[in-house]
């Protein structure tokens, strides 16, 4: 791991206090500015993918692929919000593909298993109690896991989650409550944080 401080765009480093410049700026243009979207949402989308695939290199690949997909059809998208929704849905779909490939590799290449599981790299930076939660989340069925991430990390509404995953509002609701119930059972005995 290494130092990640500093570096900025052309004029944004003028100020010494970086508080404001840390705010991500969302382009307000009428047409989709894909470079602007990339600058504004790259970190958010990679983090979303990290929560779904659990390793950063795969997550970065997923986001690059999502932007390539958007790039291909950017002519047909005018609304930045729609573009972000499209990117988010792409990230979820591509993350599923990553997990599927991992699973296939695991089934067919038993000897290669150590390499096919998610690298433990940066999850070691996470404190123990978080790790227990994350392990429990990882054990949930895919839909439940996705719903919990979109709800509790992305902060999306039920309707937005339904649109992102292409399922009904009711399905979102039941996946969330079943997921929470399972976590409650698994983690319930854990000492108070």
């Amino acid at each position: 791991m290494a130092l990640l401080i500093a570096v900025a765009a052309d004029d944004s480093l003028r100020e010494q206090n970086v508080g404001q410049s840390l705010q991500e700026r969302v382009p307000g243009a009428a047409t989709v500015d894909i470079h602007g979207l990339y600058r504004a949402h790259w970190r958010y989308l990679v983090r979303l993918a990290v929560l779904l695939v659990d390793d950063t290199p795969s997550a970065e690949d997923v986001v690059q692929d999502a932007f390539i997909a958007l790039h291909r059809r950017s002519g047909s998208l005018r609304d930045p919000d729609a573009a972000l929704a499209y990117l988010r849905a792409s990230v979820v779909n591509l993350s599923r593909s990553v997990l599927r490939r991992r699973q296939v590799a695991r089934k067919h290449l038993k000897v290669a298993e150590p390499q096919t599981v998610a690298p433990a790299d940066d999850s070691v930076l996470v404190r123990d109690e978080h790790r227990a939660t994350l392990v429990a989340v990882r054990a949930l069925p895919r839909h439940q896991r996705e719903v919990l991430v979109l709800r509790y990390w992305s902060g999306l509404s039920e309707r937005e989650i339904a649109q992102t995953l292409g399922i009904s509002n009711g399905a979102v609701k039941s996946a969330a409550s079943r997921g929470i119930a399972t976590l409650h059972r698994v983690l319930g005995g854990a000492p108070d944080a």
Partner: protein
Amino acid sequence: MRDGMGPDDIERQLRDSFDARARAGVPDGAMPPPPRFATAGAAPRRHGRWLAPLAAAAVVLAVVGTVLGLQSGSGHHGQQPVAGPSGRQTSPPVLQTSATAAPVDIRMVPVDGATYGVGMPVVAYFSQRFSSAKPLVAATSVTVSGKPVHAAWYFEKSAKPGYPVEGHLRMRDYWPAHVDVHVTVAANAITPATTVNFHTGARTIAVVEDAKHQMVVTSDDKSLGVFPVSLGTDSTPTGRGTKVIMAKQPSICLSGPGFHGCGIKYAQQLTFSGEYLIAAPWNAALGLRDTSNGCTNLTSADAEYLYRHLRVGDVVKYPDTTGPMMQVAGGLGDWNVPWAVWLKGGLIPTG
């Protein structure tokens, strides 16, 4: 004390754990690499556009390699980002640094004229790993108020996407106070020429004494005050060693074990792991006990005062806390590396 956790606790813990995992995977300072959708077609010459505007106010030489330049110049293939999940280069080939190799494109971030604390290292990011730093070292000259001084590079792996290596440049001791620092890197086998110029402010050093639960701050040998603090508990101890203020934010969100809150004021960041000097009006143990998640808790008035009087690059020492020793990569941990070790160059030998 409670026996178990209710659904609300689970939801809160989910938010915290997701947040912690997301940040561990992609630190707040993480920069997007050049987008692949752009490199698929034309050459990515618009460096300044994709560099996200985040920047802790480090003094920075951003050394940016263009894919095109490397491809056409060095003859090394396999460097180009490949669109596809399997295209990731986990260990990029080492760039040869013979005199004929094409230089990595270098781009200076304009921080000229800014003023920093005396503990501020110069930081440069390199888009390629190189096998020897000798050409870069030979090309680097540093002056302090016009007089040449000895400063040395130290290299390490970088977590910044697209930048496998970063170099830190510092003198044996902190920069002198109230001077102009000029760094010149002449064109060499690794990079083209670049410069950076900045000022230093007062020699401001804070020492946080865990045993006394207080923070003693001096500026140019005059006292700025002694402030009661509360540091990390035994289970979440504050790290030991010399840290440097890397960013200042008037208000932030923080999360830790069983804790997530926004609107935390007068935050001055010390480590990537999330140690800050912060206003902690909720903490009744300032000056008495360690009760935090690792942050240095201060009264609101003290935190505001220090926010106004400390700047990025100022030094904050933790000689007697029980947490892990501050590493270079943990933030601006440069001053924890002994000079003799620093001179060897770290990841890339300078000798």
